[in-house]
């Protein structure tokens, strides 16, 4: 019948459309095809399919667009220029959850490349629609919306402020409490991106009660979640003393120190960053961390990890040591100096690592009078560090006889004699001061080449008959 034939034509067309859009989506998932797709003008073909009647085609078209925009920023620009975003935002409010997920994916893919693209996403009014998505029941929709908001807020402070003004923060805090792990991760990462720009934003997030929930998730076994949680807490605490104190009041110590032994190295790095941000503000906070045994844990972490991962640990030790002499002493008794020296001297250490470890060493050395901790450094240190070490010795030895005795027996005096210093330099003065603490014979005994002179004397001695 003619009716059936007419219906068959429509059916074929629909099959063709679905097949096209699905294949394009699948091809777009492989990077090598995307250039070809772009040259074939896929954007202009996908755009009308977004308005298709059949919901499956709409969703697949949105997914394909999202994958294309995800690949590089030219395609994302093309998506923006093609006026696709307002249509997506409009239908975000109306369609079913699969479409919402796909549309949020496209927004995220566009916003992630650059601040200008994120701004154009915000200008289309996407923020309100995304915040409405955050109120949905389906966790997948919430996750995509939170991810998109996180990418938008990541670029700069104005965009983060726009996200906060749209009322996203309380909803994100609610999302963190949801049972799904992936949703928690994404919400924590979005909060971290919001907080990192300025103290007011961090204060807004804290006022929404985020700290308590983030603190609860510290002992979660999932590694990626812990990464995001610690990153969020450290972004909050880095801005001001009050925020750092609020983070500390959430009773994260000493539970946080157990996460320094996590097998995932980024978790450890983020924990060290968090401790560093807390320690740098005031001596009281640094004292708190020291009293909780944080220094020992961080020293172990610095000793075990490699490369730039341990940078936050080194900075943290430098910050603590810089506050007051007591802190420097507390740090020094934790056997940190040899490890720091090692970090400084490693051949494959980056510039950043070397400068930071040198600064930390200097800060701690200048206040450290705990001699047993300094002795290992005498043997290995390079000249510029050695100067400080010897300086510290020269301050303590004239006053303490027991320390002098210990210094001799531990071969420190011998080492001092072996140092070649230019006369008139500070190092030579320190060496002189130390030598003046001891009787001459001992100094001569330990000076290099003394055994040879003795032997020469033995050779030249004529026994008296």
């Amino acid at each position, binding site marked *: 019948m003619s009716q059936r034939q007419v219906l068959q034509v429509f059916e074929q067309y*629909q099959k063709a459309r679905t097949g096209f859009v699905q294949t394009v989506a699948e091809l777009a998932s492989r990077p090598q095809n995307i250039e070809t797709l772009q040259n074939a003008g896929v954007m202009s073909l996908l755009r009308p399919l977004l308005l298709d009647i059949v919901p499956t085609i709409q969703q697949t078209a949105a*997914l394909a667009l999202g994958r294309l925009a995800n690949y590089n920023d030219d395609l994302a620009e093309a998506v923006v220029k093609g006026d696709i975003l307002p249509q997506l935002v409009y239908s975000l409010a109306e369609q079913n959850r699969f479409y919402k997920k796909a549309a949020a*994916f496209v927004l995220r893919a566009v916003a992630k490349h650059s601040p200008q693209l994120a701004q154009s996403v915000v200008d289309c009014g996407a923020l309100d629609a995304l915040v409405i998505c955050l109120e949905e029941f389906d966790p997948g929709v919430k996750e*995509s919306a939170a991810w998109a908001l996180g990418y938008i807020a990541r670029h700069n402070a104005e965009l983060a402020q726009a996200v906060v003004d749209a009322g996203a923060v309380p909803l994100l805090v609610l999302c963190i409490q949801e049972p799904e792990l992936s949703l928690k991760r994404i919400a924590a990462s979005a909060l971290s991106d919001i907080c990192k720009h300025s103290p007011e934003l961090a204060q807004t997030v804290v006022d929404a009660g985020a700290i308590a929930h983030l603190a609860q998730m510290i002992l979660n076994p999932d590694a990626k979640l812990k990464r995001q949680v610690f990153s969020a807490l450290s972004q909050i605490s880095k801005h001001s003393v009050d925020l750092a104190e609020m983070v500390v009041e959430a009773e994260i110590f000493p539970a946080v120190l157990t996460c320094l032994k996590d097998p995932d190295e980024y978790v450890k790095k983020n924990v060290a960053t968090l401790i560093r941000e807390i320690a740098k503000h005031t001596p009281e906070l640094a004292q708190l961390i020291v009293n909780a045994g944080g220094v020992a844990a961080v020293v172990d972490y610095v000793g075990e990890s490699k490369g730039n991962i341990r940078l936050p640990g080194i900075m943290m030790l430098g910050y603590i040591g810089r506050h007051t002499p*007591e802190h420097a002493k*507390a740090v020094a*008794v*934790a056997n940190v100096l040899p490890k720091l020296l090692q970090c400084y001297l490693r051949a494959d250490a980056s510039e950043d690592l070397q400068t930071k470890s040198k600064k930390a060493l200097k800060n701690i050395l200048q206040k450290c009078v705990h001699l047993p901790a300094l002795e290992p450094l005498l043997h290995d240190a390079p000249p510029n560090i050695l100067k400080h070490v010897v300086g510290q010795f020269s301050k303590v030895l004239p006053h303490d006889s027991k320390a002098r005795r210990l210094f001799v027996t531990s071969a420190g005096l011998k080492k001092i004699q072996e140092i070649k210093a230019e006369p008139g330099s500070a190092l030579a003065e320190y060496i002189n001061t130390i030598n003046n603490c001891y009787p001459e014979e001992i100094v001569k005994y330990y000076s290099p080449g003394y055994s040879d002179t003795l032997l020469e004397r033995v050779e030249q001695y004529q026994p008296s008959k």
Partner: protein
Amino acid sequence: MAAMVRLLEETDPIVEEVYRRKNEAEEARQLEYLSTVKIQAWYRGEKTRAYMSHLNKCALIIQRHWRGYLGRGLTRILVKNSVMIMKINFYNKKATYIQKMWRGYYVRKYVFNYYSRKRYLEALQIKNEIVRSELEEYAEMQEQERRRKAEKVEKERREVLARRNHYLISTEVIPGVFNSPFLPYPTDTEYLLRSVKPLLHEKKKKTDKPFDPTCRSYDLPKPKLLPPLPTKPQGPFREPEDVQNQRYKPFQPSLRVATSFTSLEEARKQMKNEEWVTRLNDNVFEPFSRRDSRYEPLLHTRSEYGHLPYGFRYFREEFPDRRVTQQWFPASAGNGGRITT
């Protein structure tokens, strides 16, 4: 008498002497007078001087005594002051000593206590060691957990593999691959194969996954095709108009559905509009605004002559012509000549 003569002889020289002496005296009188005056002056001067000096001495004595008195008073004050200063210095020194001892004690005990600091550092070292050992224990425990989990996963994997390759087991007649006849005993894979059940190959059911356009799944679900057109012969068809009427029957909502949600508000609004148009009296009724005007009761109820029992004793006039007499009355009184009461 001889003496008398002699005396008389001597009178002339005596008179001459007298006159001579008198002349001499006369000549010397001025001189003597001046000398006498001088002597007297000197004497008087001496007397006065002696008196003056006496007076001076007296004055000096008085002054001396007075000055001594004053000076002694002043000295007393000076001595008192210096004694007081000495005492104050003494007390100051003692107070300084006390303060010194106290400050040293206080600082050494409360502000910077060397020994407690030393103890703190030692305790800190111990605490650090404790923390270190605890962390290591924790790390070890986690490590063991993970290893156990990994082992479990591994074991399950091997079991599944064994179940799938169960056909490699050796039979009575043919020794399998893992049961070589040249070995004294079979390998443990053989034992594993013997211990597991074979896997039944069930037909995998095609699950209709719902469409999930997140970026994670790479294989998309197949879309649902339209159902095939039916081929069996269709029965007798109704008239198209009947079918259309039935299909597009107008909606007959119940009263409850048909009233809008805001019907109450609209009705109120309409009432208000009507009032607005038709109402004449704009005076708002204020309750309790006539409190100060006295209540004026009706004569009907308050009169002492009673009132008609109509209205509360009986409500229906049973004899409506009771008060109407048949007596004729002149027409000028009105009422058409009837008398009513």
